[in-house]
């Protein structure tokens, strides 16, 4: 029973991955919109883009980690 609940919890935690996908899409989409408005400034901001994506992605990874912990460590 405990294991079942843990699996359900893992599934719920995996929703966080989807939320992170929204976040990454938001970052990349806004970057693209800005880059198309002002392409000359785009190259200088790719580092910021990757940092932003990394931060958004990291939280999804944390959710995934929680799911893994629930699956394998609890």
């Amino acid at each position, binding site marked *: 029973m405990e294991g079942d609940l843990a699996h359900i919890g893992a599934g719920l935690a995996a929703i966080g991955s989807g939320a992170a996908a929204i976040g990454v899409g938001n970052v990349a989409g806004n970057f693209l919109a800005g880059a198309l408005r002002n392409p000359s400034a785009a190259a200088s901001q790719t580092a910021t883009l990757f940092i932003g994506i990394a931060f958004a992605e990291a939280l999804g990874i944390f959710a995934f980690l929680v799911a*893994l*912990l629930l699956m*394998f*460590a609890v």
Partner: protein
Amino acid sequence: MATETTGAVSSCVDSYGSAIGMPQLCFEWFPNQIFWLVLTLVVIFLVLSRIALPRIASVLAERQGTITNDIAAAENLKAKALEAEDAYNKALADARAEAQNIVASAKAEIQADLNVAIAKADSEIAAKTSESEAAIAEIRAGALASVEEVAKDTAAELVSALGGKASAKDVGAAVAARLKG
């Protein structure tokens, strides 16, 4: 369910060789992992900082220097080429001017020769003309004198034929008056 006793060598791996829980959270492996990681990082750092990075930095600097030198040399060569072109143009202009000079002097010489020849020819022609004129005038004078003589003789003959008697002097005056008139 023989887990820890038979095949298993660790509390993190079961007897089938599968992971119990997450292998990442198996604390008994941590010292080993940390030791090898730190060793690896130290080796990489020493290799890079002692050998690779200074070498790449020197290669890049050398390349930069080579490029700068090459650009300088190219500019130098370009300046030289421009200089050579200037010199060539100048030489060309000089040669052209000289050629024009030669042409002009040749022309002047020829002109002078020509003038001399023309003058000579002119004088010859003039001499011949005056000679001819003199001959013509002589002939004419000769002719006039003969005419006067013939007219005097004729007039004296006519006067005598008509029965008149005229002195040669009168006849001569009358003929001269007639010829003049």
